[in-house]
Each structure stands twice: as structure tokens, then as C-alpha cells.
């Protein structure tokens, strides 16, 4: 069973601060995705990373896939209240189209 552990579980920061959160596993994934979910809505895909060591940027968000494709990080620069939400990582091991989801990181950015 592939497990994805996300840390920290909860994070509350002030607007303008930088932060990094993590998604770790002992398993290798062929691809990994990050989603953001706001209250009352379904998760929305932010990014997919496929190649070990890959870095992708989405405005103030920087995603990195570990060299061994077992982990990923999300760095947010100058966080804003609009970044508030539940951040989920999900990995695909390649055997089928099922994704394994982490439990998520609840981020609160205070104005």
C-alpha cells in the first residue's frame, strides 16, 4: 500500500510570510499532483509533476518533485489570505489510474 504523509497537518501564518509544506512517501510514484480545496468546494488541481527533480512554478507557488520521485514540496512566497485552504498531494504509482491521496495540510493565512 502506497502512503503519502503530509506535513505539517495545520499551519497558520501571517500574510506576507513564506512557507514550505511537504508530501513524503516510501514508495515511488510515476507522477504526483497537488490540489487545493476551499470550504464547500471540491479539490482543484494545481500542478502535476512527473520527472524526478522537476520544479514547477505557478505564480507564487513553487512545486518540486524529489529526485527519487518519493516526495514533493510546495513553497509559497509572500502568502496571501486567498491561499487559505486544504492542500492535498496525490500520487500515481502507474499500475492503474487510481491516485493515492495524502490527508492534507490545512493552511490559514491571516490578513
Amino acid at each position, binding site marked *: 500500500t502506497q502512503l503519502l504523509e503530509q506535513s505539517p497537518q495545520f499551519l497558520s501564518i501571517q500574510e506576507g510570510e513564506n512557507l514550505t509544506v511537504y508530501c513524503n512517501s516510501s514508495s515511488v510514484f510515476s507522477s504526483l499532483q497537488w490540489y487545493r480545496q476551499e470550504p464547500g468546494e471540491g479539490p482543484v488541481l494545481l500542478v502535476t509533476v512527473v520527472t524526478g527533480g522537476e520544479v514547477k512554478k505557478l505564480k507564487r507557488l513553487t512545486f518540486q518533485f524529489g529526485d527519487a520521485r518519493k516526495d514533493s514540496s510546495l513553497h509559497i512566497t509572500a502568502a496571501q489570505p486567498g491561499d487559505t485552504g486544504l492542500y492535498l498531494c496525490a500520487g500515481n504509482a502507474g499500475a*492503474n489510474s487510481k491516485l493515492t491521496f495524502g490527508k492534507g495540510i490545512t493552511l490559514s493565512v491571516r490578513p
Partner: protein
Amino acid sequence: GAGVSQSPSNKVTEKGKDVELRCDPISGHTALYWYRQSLGQGLEFLIYFQGNSAPDKSGLPSDRFSAERTGGSVSTLTIQRTQQEDSAVYLCASSLVRTSTYEQYFGPGTRLTVT
């Protein structure tokens, strides 16, 4: 284009009653997934469809839960004899398997409350 839609958006039912939750995936998406999410928690996988067949039902919590998909499109999740612990948000997602990275597109969810 239209995204994934789910109905109803909210459902309040009495303990012991049956409920049906509906999911309309994005047109052309062959894979469909059901998840359950308790308040503030991550996603609990329930069942996955590829076309009309369900190769993975491993997440269904009990035999009170069942799901079907017809015409490779609409799916219905049925919960029989509902219990209070069934209260949660039920999310549906669809995926275009051809992409090989299986990005999932989620609906807004159905919030189920069992009283």
C-alpha cells in the same frame, strides 16, 4: 466546457433511510471515482470505475454502500439503511485516462447529514 456535477448538493436524511447520490462526469472522461471526506479531513477512497466496470471497490466501508455507472457516464452511489457515521461530504471525480498522469477533476460534492 462543463465540469463534474453532483446532485443533490445537500441531503438530510433520517437514520435507516436509503439515499442515492448522483455524479455527472466530464464528457469523455472514462474513469470515475467516489471519495468520502469527513469535516476537515483528507479524502477516503470508496470506488473507482473504468467505463462501466469497477475494478476497485476496496474502499466501500460496508455492504450498505454500492455504486453503479451506466453508459460510461453518470454514476450513482447508493447508501442503504444510513447510519449517523455516514454523515460526510461525498465527492466524485473524473479523469481522462489517456493522459497517463490521471489528473482528477472534482465535483462540488454532496453533503450528507444523517439525523
